[in-house]
């Protein structure tokens, strides 16, 4: 009831605005600028500050877009609701959010959509009813492929690799390792996976497991660690065993933790989602949806600017791309961010 009245009022405003447009052209520039709000889990987190950088990059590329980078002080759903309410009040054109709670934000985001605001989630998603689409950082097959490719790039003649994972029951890691095995069989026949061990995401246990691998397999060429804890522990173990140059450590890691190990040479390269790309892609998607250049529906292709297109699955979830590879050439730049 009240919403219809609201829509009516909005309609009235739009009509007045349209009448104004016929008379003045200066009002047109005002109305044309699109405001996209990037709502993050909390302000003051390096990862999200980098997301903002990417969003600004997209905005300057698009030209007529203004980014509102905002979020609560603490990572709470209540704080994000307050922020979203003030964004609805400002009649922003689009909201791209990384959610603190996938369910609690649904009512307020539904309200935003009812009032004509395009809502997408990225990184940490919102339940289906509360957004038009979700942009995932990456997908399991792409992570698996990237892991084995990083290993293969530094061992052109093939050889032995081992995996140091988190725990045996970690759903994410197991899925990535399985995807990696599939990619290995298909594209890298000369590489042999000799062992998968688990460090339970504990630094000391991961370190000991890596030491065990180094001793047990004298011909080991690469340790693949798809966990941020395991990869730095393995790098440390390789350095301490004076095997730098003989054994390469790769996997998924944080640039801030891995920069030192890249410098010593223990790790030639590693991967993770690039927050700058994520902010860029999320902004591009939000822009395309808000500008009605694309529509979020299963199977739809939505442009992400220079990052290509993303195709939505049946739950309206799109994937940004393969993980971003960090090496000696760029790790210092990103280490300052996250």
């Amino acid at each position, binding site marked *: 009831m009240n919403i219809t009245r609201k829509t009516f009022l909005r309609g009235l405003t739009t009509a007045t605005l349209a009448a104004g447009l016929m008379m003045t052209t200066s009002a047109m520039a005002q109305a044309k600028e699109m405001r996209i709000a990037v709502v993050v889990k909390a302000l003051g987190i390096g990862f999200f500050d980098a997301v903002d950088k990417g969003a600004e990059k997209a905005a300057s590329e698009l030209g007529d877009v203004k980014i509102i980078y*905002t979020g609560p002080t603490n990572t709470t*759903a209540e704080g994000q609701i307050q922020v979203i*309410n003030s964004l609805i009040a400002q009649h922003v054109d689009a909201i791209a959010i990384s959610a603190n709670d996938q369910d609690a934000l649904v009512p307020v985001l539904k309200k935003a959509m009812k009032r004509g605001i395009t809502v997408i989630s990225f990184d940490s998603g919102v339940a289906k009813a509360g957004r038009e689409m979700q942009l995932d950082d990456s997908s399991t097959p792409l992570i698996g492929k990237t892991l084995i490719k990083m290993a293969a790039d530094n061992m052109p003649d093939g050889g032995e690799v081992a995996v140091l994972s988190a725990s045996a029951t970690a759903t994410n890691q197991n899925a990535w390792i399985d995807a990696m095995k599939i990619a290995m069989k298909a594209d890298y026949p000369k590489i042999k996976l000799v062992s998968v061990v688990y460090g339970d995401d504990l630094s000391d246990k991961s370190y000991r497991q890596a030491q065990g691998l180094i001793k047990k397999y004298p011909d080991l060429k690469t340790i693949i660690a798809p966990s941020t804890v395991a990869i730095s522990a393995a790098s440390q173990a390789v350095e301490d065993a004076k095997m730098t140059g003989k054994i390469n450590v790769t996997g998924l890691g944080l640039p801030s933790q891995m920069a030192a190990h890249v410098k010593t040479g223990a790790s030639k390269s590693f991967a993770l989602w690039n927050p700058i790309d994520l902010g860029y892609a999320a902004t591009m998607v939000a822009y395309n949806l808000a500008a009605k250049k694309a529509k979020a529906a299963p199977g739809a292709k939505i442009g992400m600017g220079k990052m290509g297109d993303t195709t939505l699955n049946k739950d309206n979830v799109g994937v940004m791309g393969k993980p971003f590879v960090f090496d000696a050439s760029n790790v210092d730049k990103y280490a300052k961010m996250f």
Partner: protein
Amino acid sequence: MSDATLSSPSTTATPRNIPDRLHRRGARALKSWEFLLALVAVAIFVINCFASPYFLDPWNLSDATFNFTELGFIAFPMAMLIIAGEIDLSVASIIAITSTLMGAAAAAGAGVGLLVAIGLGTGLICGAFNALMVTGFGLPSIVVTIGTMSLYRGFSYIILGSNAYTDYPAGLAYFGQGYVFWVFSFELVLFVALAIAFAILLHATRFGRAVYAIGNNPVGARFSGIRTGRIKAILFLLTGLLSGVAAICLTSRLGSTRPSIAFGWELQVVTMTVLGGVSILGGSGSILGVVLAALVIGLVTFGFGLLNVPGIVMSIFIGLLLIGVIALPRLYARLKPRVAARRG
């Protein structure tokens, strides 16, 4: 007035300079404080009107009231509790356990009526436990409620872990998302009704007089025949009950429950109460002050939100306001005799 009779032995010669006496010296000082707060609220309102073109919109202002209504429900009984010289820091955790039990009941198929009953009942039971510990065993309320703060939320974490309850009946949405008429939400109307009810209870009943008496002089109050234990117990029950009300509204507004719900709200409620001029040492304060403080906090958060000012700046601003509230009367108390002396 009766304020004066209560403190009459100390008005002539004050050996210790306890600042809250300032308020009780006359209704004038108290009134002027609320007047000041009202001025602040009006000033912020006017500044907001100029700062953002989106501020003066009935629907936006209506949305903004959600920033303080639920906190306000709890701030009313909390004000009375603090006036009586006690405090309840477990209120946010009461919301968590209440919401969790409501979620569990909803998952088992309970209807709206039963959910509301569970919400109010859980709040009352939690309040009763606090009351028992404080008045029954004579433990300090700050210690007891810091304990129950962990206890109640702990239950939520045990029941829910990293899961969430999301299946609430559609009818429950009215409490946190419904409107009584036009832009006046259910929560806003309830806020006004509760403000009037608590204002009458505190300022126009014998019960309210007794609350002030206990806060000013608990021993004296007991010797004058006031059943201090019973009155404190009722205040804890009221605080629990209103936390239950807040839990129902918040659960309805979020449409889901996680154990981290309303995290950190206990300090926001205390902030609102103290900003409203309730002396943290007990004995003085008013419901009108709390209402004005709620408005000030709501207007500041919404106004800053419209300008996309980072939340941390809002926290700093509220913090400065709060320090100002506590420091001003003391500064005034120190300066007044000097100025008077200079004039004399």
